[in-house]
């Protein structure tokens, strides 16, 4: 009984705020459900899969935004002129129903709400949750960067071929193609590990905030470099194994790693390693180089 009356009390205290939240929910719940369904069932497109980290990111962003609500209420009400202006843009994107425009209208409308209710200060307060939402909103950027991934594909093919040579496998590397026993493996753009890289960077972003690395530029940059390196190394290993399996006709193993839950195992291992990297950086890397020099001088 007590809980019910507290709820109705909150509702009556901020009726307009709750109405706004409810309306945003009505508008975007179907769209978000469509995204989640696509991520869980891999039913929309390869480009859509690039954003499956939203399954983690959206709940986290919602939790963060909710945890800011006391500071939010303390802010003075203010309406930034950009708010209503961008609302028109956001809603027309939503109503057009066209792929990217409807998708990107979600972070846009959320940003508009922040700007229109609490102005610039409100937007700044919620900037990190908004960023998380933006980076998990499906769009066509993975498609647009495909032509530029070619050097990475070549690099991965070359290193994978090199590794296989060290194990005595008869392999021939030609641009992005690997030939083992006359079996051809192509390192396609989608095999270049971009999806895992996007997911890793996104999880890295969440960790930077959660673990508190964000205060130090040295730690943050080292972490990002570490994530990129880990991602590329992991992908090289994955492509090496796939080429090996395909070359020696281990078709079940190939299918497991390429299409089935082998990919999930690979992702899980990568994310655990990133978590360890964050912990390691937090404990072994100083907040800045000057602190490092001071310590070095002290030990001398």
């Amino acid at each position, binding site marked *: 009984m007590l809980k019910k009356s507290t709820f109705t009390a909150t509702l009556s205290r901020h009726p307009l705020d709750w109405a706004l939240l409810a309306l945003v929910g009505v508008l975007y719940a179907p769209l978000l459900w469509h995204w989640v369904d696509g991520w869980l069932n891999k039913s929309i497109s390869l480009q859509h899969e690039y954003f499956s980290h939203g399954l983690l990111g959206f709940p986290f962003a919602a939790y963060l935004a909710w945890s800011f609500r006391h500071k939010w209420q303390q802010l003075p009400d203010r309406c930034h002129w950009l708010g209503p202006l961008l609302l028109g843009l956001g809603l027309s994107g939503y109503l057009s129903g066209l792929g990217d425009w409807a*998708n990107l209208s979600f972070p846009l409308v959320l940003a508009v709400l922040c700007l229109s209710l609490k102005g610039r200060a409100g937007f700044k307060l919620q900037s990190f949750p908004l960023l998380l939402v933006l980076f998990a909103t499906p769009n066509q950027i993975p498609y647009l960067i495909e032509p530029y991934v070619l050097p990475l594909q070549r690099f991965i093919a070359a290193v994978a071929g090199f590794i296989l040579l060290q194990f005595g496998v008869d392999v021939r590397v030609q641009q992005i193609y690997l030939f083992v026993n006359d079996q051809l493996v192509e390192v396609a753009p989608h095999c270049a590990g971009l999806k895992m890289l996007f997911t890793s960077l996104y999880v890295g972003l969440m960790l930077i905030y959660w673990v508190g690395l964000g205060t130090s530029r040295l730690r943050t940059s080292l972490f990002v470099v570490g994530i990129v390196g880990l991602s590329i190394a992991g992908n090289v290993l994955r492509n090496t194994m796939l080429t090996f399996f395909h070359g020696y006709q281990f078709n079940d193993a190939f299918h497991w790693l390429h299409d089935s839950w082998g990919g999930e195992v690979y992702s899980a291992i990568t994310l655990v390693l990133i978590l360890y990297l964050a912990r390691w950086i937090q404990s072994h890397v100083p907040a800045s180089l000057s602190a490092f020099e001071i310590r070095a001088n002290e030990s001398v």
Partner: protein
Amino acid sequence: MNVAKSAQIGEAAQPTPPALPQPRRTTRLIKGGLIGLLAAAAIALVIPSLISGQWPWGQPPEVANIQPVQALRNSGIPLEGWQLTDQEEVRISGKSWSAQQFNQGADSDQALVLLLRPQPWHTNLPEVEWVDLSGSQNWEIRHRQTLTIPAAETQDAVGGGSFRASFFRGANDQRTYAVLQWYAWPGGGSPSPGRWFLADQWHQLRHGDRLPWIAVSLWQPMAGRGDIQPLRDEMVAIAQEIQTTLNSTALLPAIQPQRN
């Protein structure tokens, strides 16, 4: 786990300059306005979709009249002044192309190879066609340049427009070719998928359906490892003809569905 909130991110900014607090009436007005607009959007989209059970994002836009485009795979296109000696559907890197071979007549040994890949389905996007071709031929690519080709003079208002194409020399151990390739779409073309994407977005906003595309790759054999510039004008003329033909046949129904 330490939940250390990042100092820069979580803090509320100091209100600058010192401003009068917004009157409650204004706040209520703004919130009311927002509620009104969001409710209007909900009524416009959510309610009809709930009733019909169909959401706009569940049906991606389709190409109007995709059949003429798909049919190119089996038919190819004619070229004026050239005799078709062979046309067949080939698979390159797992994708279907129409491969045509032309000769300039029995007494000339000028030959031409024309590869066309029309989009197989509404949802296909131009992606790795050029990498597939150069990979399958194991080409060493030199002298790459992008040409802007104006529309042919006989072009009528429909589909008239200049297009861009990639021009280079592709050579392997057996043969050398001067290659001109681009993605053709109604009224334009470019070797870059990004340009098609922009044109497609613009087309979707105006017509609500998808812009069709056909990957065109034109090869002219040449003496090994020579200069491709002498072949440029001739190939550009042939490219203009190809673009005109495509615009007036396969790609035409996509932009003028009312015409019979």
